């Protein structure tokens, strides 16, 4: 029979080499408890993999596509029939977008500006589907919102609690 195509990213996880979760984005509805279980399981699976293995792991009915950038792992869960190589480039494009926004993005940027990392991801992917692959359009919306660039002084005058 003909296969039923669902090209959809089910979820995206960002975690450190120490296994600390830095960002999670779910495109399927699951109870929180289940999500925590899945995160634990997947972090364990990926961290246990050796270097020079493929970037793909079968996991349940899905496939995990992952890549490490410096200290951070980016991992997407996709449908079994979905395009693995292109998913790797989804990850890469996201890293480029972060890089463009933060300028040489590092793990700390994502920790301290997790909400921005979410916004950038949302501009790029909606409901698990790539919305716009052009680098320009994706970051534009976020940069627009940052137009009111504040000075260090203004920032330091804000309450620290």
């Amino acid at each position, binding site marked *: 029979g003909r296969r039923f195509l669902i090209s959809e990213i089910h979820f995206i996880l960002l975690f450190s080499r120490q296994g600390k979760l830095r960002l999670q984005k779910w495109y399927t509805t699951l109870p929180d408890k289940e999500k925590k279980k899945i995160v634990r399981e997947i972090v364990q699976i990926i961290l246990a993999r050796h270097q020079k293995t493929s970037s793909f792991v079968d996991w349940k009915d899905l496939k995990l596509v992952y890549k490490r950038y410096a200290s951070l792992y980016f991992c997407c869960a996709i449908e079994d029939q979905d395009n693995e190589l292109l998913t790797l480039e989804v990850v890469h494009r996201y890293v480029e977008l972060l890089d463009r926004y933060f300028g040489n993005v590092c793990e700390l940027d994502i920790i301290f500006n997790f909400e921005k990392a979410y916004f950038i991801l949302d501009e790029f992917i909606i409901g698990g589907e790539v919305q716009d*692959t052009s680098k320009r359009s994706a970051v534009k919306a976020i940069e627009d919102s940052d137009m009111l660039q504040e000075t260090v002084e203004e920032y330091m005058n804000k309450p620290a609690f």
Partner: protein
Amino acid sequence: MPAVSKGDGMRGLAVFISDIRNCKSKEAEIKRINKELANIRSKFKGDKALDGYSKKKYVCKLLFIFLLGHDIDFGHMEAVNLLSSNRYTEKQIGYLFISVLVNSNSELIRLINNAIKNDLASRNPTFMGLALHCIANVGSREMAEAFAGEIPKILVAGDTMDSVKQSAALCLLRLYRTSPDLVPMGDWTSRVVHLLNDQHLGVVTAATSLITTLAQKNPEEFKTSVSLAVSRLSRIVTSASTDLQDYTYYFVPAPWLSVKLLRLLQCYPPPEDPAVRGRLTECLETILNKAQEPPKSKKVQHSNAKNAVLFEAISLIIHHDSEPNLLVRACNQLGQFLQHRETNLRYLALESMCTLASSEFSHEAVKTHIETVINALKTERDVSVRQRAVDLLYAMCDRSNAQQIVAEMLNYLETADYSIREEIVLKVAILAEKYAVDYTWYVDTILNLIRIAGDYVSEEVWYRVIQIVINRDDVQGYAAKTVFEALQAPACHENLVKVGGYILGEFGNLIAGDPRSSPLIQFNLLHSKFHLCSVPTRALLLSTYIKFVNLFPEIKTTIQDVLRSDSQLKNADVELQQRAVEYLRLSTIASTDILATVLEEMPPFPERESSILAKLKKKKGPGTVTDLEEIKKERSSDMNGSAEPASVNASAVSTPSPSADLLGLGAAPLTNSAPPPSSSGSLLVDVFSDSASAVAPLAPGSDDNFASPDLASSEVVSEEPADTVHDADELFHKFVCKNNGVLFENQLLQIGLKSEFRQNLGRMFIFYGNKTSTQFLNFTPTVICSDDLQPSLNLQTKPVDPTVDGGAQVQQVVNIECVSDFMEAPILNIQFSPKQEVQNIFKAKHPMDAEITKAKIIGFGSALLEEVDPNPANFVGAGIIHTKTTQIGCLLRLEPNLQAQMYRLTLRTSKEAVSQRLCELLSEQF
């Protein structure tokens, strides 16, 4: 501290995150978080109204705490307040919180929906974008109810900004996935298709995703998208790498859009229009050609994007399965990748070749790579890649290479990763059975499986080997000898003890002539394993012992001594104790004749799809284990649409043709058609059912009742292939040297023979087994002697009850007198009508309200049976129609399909005309 926060930075948040990071222990972290939670609670509850900035900051802190893995049960209201802020950054945080911490409080949802409605109506593209993202992120039914009607309008409106169109398309896609029933098709669908022509590639990309998903369920409605997609694709693949500017990714023109278009085309068969088809073929050839060109960049991004398009093109070529030239080119391309230095490409090539292997055009081309694949199995360092190699070997296996592939898989199994052992075991078992020319090879393979990976050999596998041995008398002696030898190993797997116990219990007599495997030695060997085994295995062994009492009367007393021992008769396990008591008693009081009857050899198992294959399908999901032969089989059985009241002429009966014998067992002898009373029988009965239910009925199939899921068994009738013509000579050969066996079998009916002869007189019992779950009506078997035959053979047949219940068996006795020698055989003619159930599928004429439906069924006069149907949404009713002359039992089942707004109504009564009429009457009522 971060160097500088961009935009409207939240200093308090940054300080809090720093504090958390500086915590030395988990306890300190929890303490700091609790302090913060208390602080935020008091701020939210305080008398002083918070300004937007503070609200945003605290909501953001809650979000951070949640992401650390703590539960958050407040703050939703403050987040909702932020939604109505006019400041983008505050609104944004509000939406983020709502999306991450979805709440099902209905009052809250009302407020959220209200805010979204306002933003959608604001005509401010950034606000509209935020609202659409939120709908897509949450994707709940409530949101679908509220916005599924509105979003298509935004999507196709002429004045909608491109960025909003993209968000609207993907938002609608998400809603369609979660609640397809709530997204109405309409005028907008044709306008969405035309978005494929849009100037803005971002809009085309988003629209293609939407159309692909919609087209999967409504192919007719979106048919026009095929030619548009082909021309769009053609423009992309022929464009220069700089033409598409921002949409060129590392010198590859619009890889995302290309892949999505190729995906969309996989929802349809090859285009009918020769011009479109030609253009598509050109595109695919161009993509294949480009793979041979030198790379435009050394970056992995370039090759990934390029190959992503290539693999998707190959998927489309495989999906169309119609251009031998493209298929072979695809196979050659993948063959190159099999030896590529990039692990990812090797992985994907193996995966993609699996599907190529199932095309008749490329199967042979795939097979030429067998050595490379076997080598991958041996040398790849990545378990994911090895797994793909196993899959491919399985897919490319056929009669010509089965022995080699099975041997390599067994070899690999010795060291295989634990995670994939069970699957390899299943695959080996299936291949060994499917391609067994010589069943001794099959038996050896399965025993090897148990030896190498006993723990991973599931019940299905060892049940199956027993079924096959029982159904094939040519392998029984070999099997007995082989298990006997395997059991000699000092430490053998318990599964081997099970198989060994079962087989020796049935066929131990076949090797008992050899003094090295005399009855006593066989018994002692099995009993030496007894105490190491689990309860179910011990139970099985006890059944073997009682079978030995019948097979080998000379060791009866030894066995009785064992059964009589305290460890058996007083066993704490009830099952074991009961077996010991009953078997001991049976062996003591029953005469040899009774023992021989009760403990007779097991009858052959009915031919059904291998339960192992079913298990593998379940494990891997449907579609992944179909292979060439299955596809061929599907095609051939599709051709035979109908079979009117089935009529079988025994002079021309058949066994299934070899090509249809996918995993069937071939013809099999029958020794005893009644289910054996010995409880050992029940251990195998459940083999064919999906669930591993512990309590199995003694007769397979006898539990079919009205509530069983396969109610629609009348469908079985129409699937029955009509090509059951076969050489009658084969039947003769079957019964030359024995008196009992299966004469004929198809999906509906099994006919068994049992006969005894004394001098010139004979008596033959013909057993007719109804294999369906419905009654046969007007069942009339007649034995006809031709005019030439009549003077030589005198036959008397007794009439048979014209109704045969589903799953039941009737017997017919034929008394035979041989007057003089004869050549020709009598003819057995059987006619019956299996149809007695009536079914109708119809559109709901009234709202599908369960309570009203129940009231109607009760009002109709039948009793409503709750909790009878495994699907709680279905309605089941029963009643009796009383007439002066007869009573007619009626059963009905009504299956609603809310999504399609349809019902399926099934009526089964003891009279067909009544079923028909009731079905007509009731079909109008719902």
